[in-house]
């Protein structure tokens, strides 16, 4: 039954489905803002690459941006509450109006029911006034949101410009650092890889790994052989296949659990034991070489 045809006006115009869409969109935006703000808030914490003199200015700028996002988030939450409250109110008011419309329709053609019909229409008008007031509250919430956005846009600070300058400075610092330090760093990395390869030969000697070639054929191992006090015996040893004397059983790896937490537990448990190693009960303390002063 069309409200405007029966009453001559619609006191509670609204499209409930559109309100559901609007509410969902607002929720998604708020969720994204909270996540972004949380990520930004973490910048500059201990353990972050921004926790240092070069990264700190960028972290500070992004934290300022995070504060602006926080203000926006508050306005959006108020909007969402207003939309939800409006939606609940609309449902209630439209239900009231539907009931009034049915009553007015029932009175159609009854000349004795004029007063009652007038009272019902007056009630519908009151519902309409309430509806308009709720609509004004909803509009006010969006006005506030608009103000918050405007405040961010009109902010005196030149966040983008400052961020740009900080990033340029960071890039320059990284370039300077690389020019001074990268060659030695990469040499160290290569050296570690070479030593790792040389250490892997031990796994062949104990019969664990068969890497599909003779270790003595590699330049790195030949260099080791040349430095060995028993080079001829080492050459002979490296020519042998040690798989036949591989240990029948190997100890189960203590780190075999694939969960990081389990490994951390193993390590932290062992650290406790190491702390008491003065009593001789803990794990041995590893070897040490000076870093070369």
């Amino acid at each position: 039954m069309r409200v405007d045809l029966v009453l001559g006006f619609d006191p509670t115009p609204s499209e409930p489905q559109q309100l559901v869409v609007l509410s969902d969109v607002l929720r998604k935006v708020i969720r994204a803002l909270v996540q972004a703000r949380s990520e930004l808030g973490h910048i500059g914490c201990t353990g972050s690459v921004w926790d240092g003199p070069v990264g700190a200015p960028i972290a500070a700028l992004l934290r300022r941006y995070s504060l602006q996002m926080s203000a926006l988030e508050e306005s959006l939450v108020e909007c969402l509450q207003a939309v939800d409250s409006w939606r609940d109110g609309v449902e209630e008011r439209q239900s009231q109006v539907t009931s009034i419309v049915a009553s007015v329709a029932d009175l159609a053609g009854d000349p004795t029911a004029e007063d009652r019909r007038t009272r019902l229409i007056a009630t519908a008008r009151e519902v309409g006034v309430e509806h308009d007031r709720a609509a004004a509250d909803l509009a006010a919430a969006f006005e506030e949101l608009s103000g918050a956005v405007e405040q961010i846009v009109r902010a005196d600070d030149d966040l983008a410009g400052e961020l740009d300058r900080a990033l340029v400075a960071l890039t320059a610092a990284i370039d300077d650092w690389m020019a001074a330090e990268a060659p030695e760093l990469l040499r160290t990395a290569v050296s570690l890889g070479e030593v790792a390869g040389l250490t892997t030969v031990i796994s062949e000697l104990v019969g664990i790994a068969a890497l599909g070639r003779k270790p003595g054929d590699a330049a790195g191992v030949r260099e080791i052989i040349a430095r060995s006090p028993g080079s001829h015996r080492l050459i002979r040893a490296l020519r042998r296949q040690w798989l036949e004397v591989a240990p029948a059983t190997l100890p189960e790896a203590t780190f075999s659990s694939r969960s990081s937490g389990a490994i951390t537990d193993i390590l932290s448990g062992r650290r406790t034991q190491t702390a008491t190693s003065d009593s001789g009960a803990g794990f041995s303390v590893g070897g040490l070489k000076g870093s070369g002063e």
Partner: protein
Amino acid sequence: MRFALLIGSRTEAAPVIVLDVPPDFYEVPLQTETEARTAAQLQVLEDMGLSDTGQREALSLYLEALAIRLSRGSVLGTAFCAVSLEGHPSTATLTVALHATGTADRGLAVMGAAEAMRREGRYASVGIHELGVHPAVTAIAERPSLPGDAANGQVGATLREMSVLVPVPGHEQAAMITLSTPCLEDWAVYETLLLDIARSLQVQRTHPDFIH
């Protein structure tokens, strides 16, 4: 086992970097004193429970040759494990170096190192991570199992290696830890293990005599 790396000179208050490593790893003895090194090598042979005389001799010779090779250069420690992992034999090596970064700004060192490693092109992937309280660079590469080309052109197995660079808090130094394994099926376990080891980095003030 703990890798303890001395920063600077061997003075009473010299800071020491400590890394927790699971007891599965055998550290290659690198002591400069021959007597101490030999004793440590014998201990490794005992700990591994090797009974074959030839194998013991081979390993002993190789450990000594490796120690001589590592007496120069920046590598401070190397260790290996030979374990059963989910029912099959598995092995990996762990290698540690201390690298001067020229800055106490850990973020700068990490970002610079990550960019340098990316540009170098040797690594399949380079990333920046937060390992507990440490910013760190991780880099993964694959390469032939032995350094240098095999003289006969024979292609060996592939080693996958992951390096983690962790700047030392309060010092212009970074620990660089590389884990390498030919057991690619166990990679996920070793990758997690290496990150846990890097996360365990601590700086302690320990009397050097205690570290011996």
